[in-house]
């Protein structure tokens, strides 16, 4: 019961770093409405949020900021790593790189990984539904696998 309440009102903190942030904003807009899953209110302050969608590249300069914001979020909290940069450094990993954190899971525990560069808003919504499934144990809509 509690899990249902938590899953259906996940409030993300506005943590758009790079290009994936625009797709995150698109998913909050009229066509791919994320509000119908309860996540319409993007809180600028981490104290009022319980989901951090890390969308974009995490650099070494940004890492302490990300950690501070993660710690300032009250529990229970979840993290979605959106985009290739947040999953494993993305297209910016090269020999001799000096400013990249290769994947946000080196800093904070991640619950759902949404791949893509940038992932389509539908991809983010699928990641969202997967997170709800992780929290409640049951999936809201049948996924592509179950239907066939």
């Amino acid at each position, binding site marked *: 019961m509690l899990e249902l309440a938590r899953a259906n009102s996940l409030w993300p*903190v*506005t*943590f*758009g*770093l*790079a*290009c994936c*942030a*625009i*797709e995150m*904003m*698109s998913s909050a*807009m*009229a*066509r791919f409405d994320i509000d119908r899953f309860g996540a319409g209110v993007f809180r*600028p302050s981490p104290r009022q949020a319980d989901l951090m969608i890390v969308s*974009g*590249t995490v*650099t*070494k*300069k*940004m890492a302490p*900021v990300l950690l501070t*914001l993660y710690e300032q979020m009250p529990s229970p909290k979840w993290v979605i790593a959106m985009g290739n940069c947040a999953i494993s450094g993305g*297209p*910016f990993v*090269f*020999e*001799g*790189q*000096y*400013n*990249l954190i290769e994947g946000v899971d080196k800093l904070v525990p991640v619950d759902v990984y949404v791949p893509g*560069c*940038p992932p*389509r808003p539908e991809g983010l919504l699928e990641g969202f539904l997967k997170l709800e499934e992780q929290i409640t144990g049951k999936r809201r809509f049948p996924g592509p696998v179950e239907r066939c």
Partner: protein
Amino acid sequence: MLDITKAELKAAFADLSIIEEDYCQCGYHLSVDLTTKDILDVADFFDERHFYLAVELGVDYREYLEIVYIFASHSSLCKVKVTLKLDPSHPAVPSLSKIYDCARWYEREIHEFYGVRFAGHPDMTYLFLHEGIDFYPLRKANVPVPAEDKELLSSFSPEQREDALIVNMGPQHPSTHGVLRVVLRMDGEYIEEAYPVLGYLHRMQEKMAENRTYYQFLPNTGRMDYLGAMSFNLGYVTAVERLVGIDVPARAHCVRVIATELNRICSHLLWVGAYLADLGGLSPFLYAFDDREHIQDVLEAVTGSRLTYCYFRFGGLYNDVDEAFIAGTKAVIARMRGRFPLYEKLVSGNVIFINRTRGIGVITKERARKYGVSGPVLRGAGIGMDLRKKEPYAAYPDLNFEIPTGRNGDALDMYHIRIRDMETSLDIIEQALARLSEGPFIIEKAPKKLKPRKGDLYHVVETPRGELGIYIVSDGSDKPYRMKWRVPSFSNLMAFPELAKGNLLSDAVAILGSLDLVIPEIDR
């Protein structure tokens, strides 16, 4: 203008080597090589003649370091490249920051990345990098940062006073449009001093360019400015084509223009939505994104991506356009023309919006020139320079369009210019569609391994934010030796501390929004 400048330069500096270059090959008209004792006088010379400093960059040629300055003029087509050679073990140069304000940040960047000392520079703290990086990244050899340099770089501390509050408008903020941090010293509600701190999204693009071939670097260009990705793609592809000497078929030229202008409309629409959201009006955000979705549908059908496009190839396009694209584009044009009255009613006539933007963040022509601003910000200040008309590329030489120019230089003017920019883009697309001819979309034999000529090139295009300059130094191989991206948001942001001084915090947010910044292109 070019001849007059050359004659005057020869007269004023008799002992300098002034070479006339082929503009079509390398993008500038004159090239001047000097020593450090002459640079201030030469900069004064150009300042008196109302040139602006387009870019100041460093190149590591192993035996020596070279600082390249490119001076350009707003009124006529005249570009001068000035170079300085420095000893790599003790590189030191007088700073241009007293003459051109934009040199302050360019010199900080060169200092962090190359270790060049600029004598007389007011503020040599970290701009992009941070304490964890203890070598100079863009040098070819691994040169560690000496201890006293590190101390100088980390010495950023805003002056604290008893009655001033120091507030971070930090990297995570809904109104900074990305990861920009501005440290504000505030007296009550008024801003005394604003210090932008960059580098939170420094993705080492310029170093990657040196490690990748020209083909492999193509996807990076879309990620630099994700909103105007087509224009960055276009700039890069036309620059390399110019360097290698590839001619592009006419059909490809037209399609490139159509795609870039559609992308420009997308970018301006997002700006309108985000700017109004900063000022508190959340409804236009939804309308703007809805319009963007329609344009993105059309572009997705041919390019495969929604946001970070990588559609152009050297010699043409990746994919040909079909009837569905043309029909879709015509539908988009008709739809957008019907939407402008809606934006008029919703936004332009809104009393609150007008009161919040009229007279805010006024940029004069002189300050705009000193900072090297470009794009809608420059046109708002009153200087009607658009690179699509001044140095046309792709299919622009054959198209007719007006350049909207503002009068006051305030945020309201920038808004109106961007709306009229969108209308101009629709006109351009219509003309390009009419000119779309049958034919190949890519050259017959697109070279698998590029053989560019040795030398350098400075190529400029007009992105939705302003003048994008790509300076490529090529050593004949298929990897660039040095690639510098002169991005418009960097020079536009330089004007922000001066504009925000003495304003209310909410007006500072309005000013920051009116500059239309995209942080990944600043941080590269």
